[in-house]
């Protein structure tokens, strides 16, 4: 089966000149798959982390502490008003050099956080800032009287948030959240700039060695189209699963 596919693409190259090396050259294929795996690691970890940042930020933003509210607002302004690529550079080249090094197992000096970890941190904060605002819009749509009912039943503010406000707010803001998470998945390509070997980085390496820019571009576009398609499908399933019978009608 694999041999047939490889032979077909080899044939395609020889007859037409379209050189999809990754489909017949195991070395290029492995590089491409490694890139894809890194993109998935970046995507999944930043989606989860940004959701937590958004939920916690929105809780603090609607909370009683003025200091915390100001901090969250400041965080949102900083991360929403600056380009994500600049943020990644700031974290990796700016903050990264300030942190002390550690000795790795083989006695070499290594930074405490490597480029992958910095990429995850900065992308999570970037998308998290948007998620704070998205969750806030959902929270504001939950009727005050529903929260009051929870309070009257003895719920603390946190428990009311956890069991009543957040589940309802989530349903309201899912469409906006979908958009932001899709954007986040595509923004993981910026990690390329600090040499994180994700899909764009791997594909770029392949095309500069195999001289097949157009073919690998097509592969790259198709890869992200499929990845986003899968994310959209998951989010729509989630939306359907959360649908409440008889609600909002």
């Amino acid at each position, binding site marked *: 089966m694999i041999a047939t596919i490889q032979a077909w693409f080899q044939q395609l190259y020889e007859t037409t000149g379209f050189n999809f090396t990754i489909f017949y050259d195991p070395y290029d294929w492995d590089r491409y798959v490694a890139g894809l795996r890194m993109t998935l690691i970046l995507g999944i970890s930043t989606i989860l982390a940004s959701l937590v940042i958004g939920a916690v930020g929105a809780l603090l933003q609607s909370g009683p502490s003025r200091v915390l509210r100001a901090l969250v607002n400041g965080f949102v302004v900083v991360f929403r008003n600056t380009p994500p690529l600049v943020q990644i550079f700031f974290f990796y080249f700016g903050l990264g050099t300030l942190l002390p090094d550690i000795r790795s197992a083989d006695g070499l000096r290594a930074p405490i956080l490597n480029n992958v970890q910095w990429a995850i941190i900065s992308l999570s904060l970037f998308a998290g800032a948007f998620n704070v605002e998205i969750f806030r819009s959902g929270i504001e749509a939950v009727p005050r009287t529903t929260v009051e009912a929870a309070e009257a039943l*003895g719920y603390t503010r946190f428990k009311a948030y956890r*069991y009543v406000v957040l589940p309802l707010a989530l349903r309201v803001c899912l469409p906006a959240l979908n958009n932001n998470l899709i954007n986040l998945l595509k923004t993981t390509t910026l990690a390329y700039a600090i040499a994180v070997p994700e899909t764009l980085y791997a594909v770029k390496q392949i095309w500069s060695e195999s001289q097949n820019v157009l073919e690998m571009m097509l592969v790259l576009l198709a890869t992200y189209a499929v990845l986003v398609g899968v994310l959209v499908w998951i989010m729509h399933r989630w939306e359907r699963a959360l649908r409440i019978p008889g*609600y909002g009608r």
Partner: protein
Amino acid sequence: MTRAPLAETPSPNWTPDQPIVRIADVHKSFGTFEVLKGISFDVRKGEVVCIIGPSGSGKSTLIRCINALVPVTAGSIEVEGIDVTDPRLDKLALRRKVGMVFQQYNLFPHKTALQNVMMAPIHVLGQEKREVEARARALLAKVRLAGKENAYPGELSGGQQQRVAIARSLAMRPDVMLFDEVTAALDPETVKEVLVTIRELAEEGMTCMLVTHEMNFARDVADHIYFTDRGVIVEHGPPATFFASAQDERTRRFLSQVL
């Protein structure tokens, strides 16, 4: 995660022979507007008290002060010896004793009827799920909603939702129930099914405080009626004397309009 059930909060300075709710000279202002201008009365255990009066007379504000949803500006409220106006008030201890039902039902729309009733005892009191579920099913049957356990609030009529809300409140085993215009949002046919439920509660000896516009219901179930207007109690008394021989001009005018 296992949580130890919370111990009953004892109220050492209160015994059942004392009023269960004491309201003393309560004032409440929203900004410069004074809604309550010195309200005082006591409610004894097992009593049913109705608060009536024109819109904007502060009835709902008063009832919301009793479970500390609204802080009072001056005066004091005690429920079973718990000082509601104490800044260090243990709100959970208070709200275990005081159940509340709202005009707009305020059910949790993302949970089924059964889950609505079960949530607070599990989340707030940390009670065991199986025991709570049995109690919740019994409560739904009690408010005549057996068979609707798995319906979502959006699939129930207003009257059914309000009865779920009553069951939800009862699941916390309160000593006092507050009803804030609970039939005002219902259509006339469903008003009755909710009132029947409240009447049964009253007959079982539950202490009830109702803000209501249902004069006939107030006459039937109340032990005592308070008429409020512009933030003060204008007149009060047991229903027989209150409806038959109101003394104050404002009361008489109000009654002539609503009866």
